[in-house]
């Protein structure tokens, strides 16, 4: 597994990680780590959020999907239901790239289901 794949795998496992911890964990130098992260962000696969830890600036790394989920979580179920128009087709699982998901806690599937349940 190359470093970029390892970063994506780590993110899936931990949901978020600080850049200052990441390069130590991967045993690579900080500039290489920073370069890969910048690239991953450009590709839209991760987000780097600036944070200050113990008075030092670093980045909190989250996967791009995780950030969208987090944004959604702050809305109520009704607001989320209003955001989707069509529930007649296949559920959000079709084409969802989170392969080891838990269908019990998936918010997207839940909203799709609730919209179906409350329609008409």
């Amino acid at each position, binding site marked *: 597994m190359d470093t970029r794949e390892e970063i994506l795998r780590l993110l899936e496992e931990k949901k978020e990680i600080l850049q200052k911890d990441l390069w130590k964990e991967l045993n690579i130098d900080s500039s290489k780590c920073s370069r890969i992260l910048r690239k991953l962000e450009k590709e839209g696969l991760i987000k780097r959020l600036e944070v200050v830890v113990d008075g030092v600036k670093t980045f909190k790394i989250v996967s791009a999907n995780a950030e969208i989920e987090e944004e959604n979580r702050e809305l*109520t*179920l009704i607001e989320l239901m209003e955001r989707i128009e069509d529930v007649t087709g*296949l559920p959000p*699982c*079709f*084409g969802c*790239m989170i392969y080891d998901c838990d269908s019990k806690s998936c918010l997207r*599937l839940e909203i799709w289901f*609730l919209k179906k349940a409350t*329609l008409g």
Partner: protein
Amino acid sequence: MEASQVGDIEELIIELIERVAGEIGLVIYSMGIKEEFTDEQIAEELKVEINEVRKALFSLYELGLAKYRRIKDDDTGWMEYHWRIEYEREREVLIKELQRTKEKLEEKLKIEDTSVYYICLNGCIKASYEESMEYGFICPKCGGNLEYLDSSKALEDIKREIEKIDKIIKSI
């Protein structure tokens, strides 16, 4: 295979690619390029940002419909990505995705069918009967009432959806 089914399958592939790799992913896929290409070439041809192209191609890769080789450019020292769209894997990928979707629907059906749920009228939470009892049928977030959620229609819909997916998989 009937002509209408071929149409259905094509539509499903289009929907799948659009969901995973977006509009740009779909455009790249529809270009029908059989040979290897670089992301720069596509970005130039489509007049879109190279990052958009790369993002779409990585999504197609994740889906199993594209592969790449990384080659170091000796002059610049940069890694070049040489991509190829794997059109021959289309059916295999579609079947895999439909099967996974069906499994997820079956799981959801089981979760919803084996318990009764209540929902906050303001849309804050959905809770099982047991949880709702503990809350005294009052939403712990907003104080509104928790009301019984009648999901019978949605469950019927899901059962029909599962049957439909089964039929499609058999026809592919």
